[in-house]
């Protein structure tokens, strides 16, 4: 695979893993290693006196780059402050911008997301914007200066796969920044489809961390992303209604 380039960052893996949902750090470590990921999300929360969760230490030890997110934020103002705190705490300009409209759907709030994106880009952040599978909004986020747009396949944690593949294709067709399929991946074939549709990378967490065997699923996702990338580059045959013999006629 060619390197994935987002902003000024270069990655040889096209699989970004979220750390949420893992039963413990040992399970997470085995899954991260099996996935081959080089970029992994963390959330920002109030620190208690007992110290952190140990996830930072783990990611540093594995040499995996941090992608802090703004999960849990409801407004542009909250997301901007959370991103600024993440930059200060973790010494990175990367941020996965997510502004959720409500707890039931966890769908991105398009108005707040776009406003936060504009402010964060202006403040020097490399913004990965979590967005609906809306081709118009994806373009607006790119115009605002986001380094990557991350349309959902389905709502976070649902494992429903890619509900509107055509919208993902439309987003890819017009984007000049990397498109990262984020959220909704349930199993390996979903990740492959994302890459076949032309996405540059896949971000997933639940599908791996809550699988019966997270390490094995992480390995499957790694292969799935590579397979989809190769298939996209290879150029699939056109779909036909009637059969076409693959052996020469007698």
């Amino acid at each position, binding site marked *: 695979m060619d390197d994935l380039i987002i902003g000024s960052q270069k990655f040889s893996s096209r699989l970004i893993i*979220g*750390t*949420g*949902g*893992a039963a413990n750090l040992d399970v*997470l470590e085995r899954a991260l290693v099996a996935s081959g990921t080089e970029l992994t*999300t*963390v*959330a*920002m*929360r*109030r*620190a*208690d*006196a007992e*110290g*952190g*969760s140990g*996830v*930072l230490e783990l990611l540093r030890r594995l040499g995996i780059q*941090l992608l*802090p*997110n703004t*999960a849990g934020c409801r407004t542009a103002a909250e997301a901007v*402050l*959370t991103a*600024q*705190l*993440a*930059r*200060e*705490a*973790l010494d990175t300009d990367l941020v996965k911008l997510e502004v959720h409209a409500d707890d039931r759907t966890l769908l991105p709030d398009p108005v707040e997301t776009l406003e936060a994106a504009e402010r964060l880009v202006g403040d020097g952040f490399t913004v990965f914007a979590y967005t609906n599978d809306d081709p118009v909004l994806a373009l607006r986020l790119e115009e605002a200066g986001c380094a990557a747009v991350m349309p959902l396949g389905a709502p*976070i*944690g649902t494992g429903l796969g890619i509900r509107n593949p055509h919208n993902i294709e439309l987003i890819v067709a017009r984007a000049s920044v990397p498109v990262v399929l984020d959220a909704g991946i349930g199993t390996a074939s979903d990740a492959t489809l994302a890459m076949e549709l032309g996405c540059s990378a896949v971000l997933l*967490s*639940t599908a791996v961390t809550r699988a019966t065997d997270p390490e094995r699923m992480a390995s499957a996702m790694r292969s799935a992303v590579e397979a989809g990338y190769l298939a996209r580059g290879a150029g699939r045959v056109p779909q036909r209604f009637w059969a076409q013999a693959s052996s020469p006629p007698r």
Partner: protein
Amino acid sequence: MEIKVNGQWREFPDGSTLSEVLDAVGALRQGVAVAVNGEVVRRGDWTASVVPKGANIDVLTAVQGG
């Protein structure tokens, strides 16, 4: 004076610096960031920054999350 740290009101001597407040609550020094009344205070400014009365301090760190 009373200061709210991560949602809990606590008593501190008047004129306490941010550094003194963080020490008193046992906050980690690495991998955390601090906002006072919704504004980030850079790590290098913690010792010089005097916390105003009634301030709302948030101390954040990274945790597992999607």
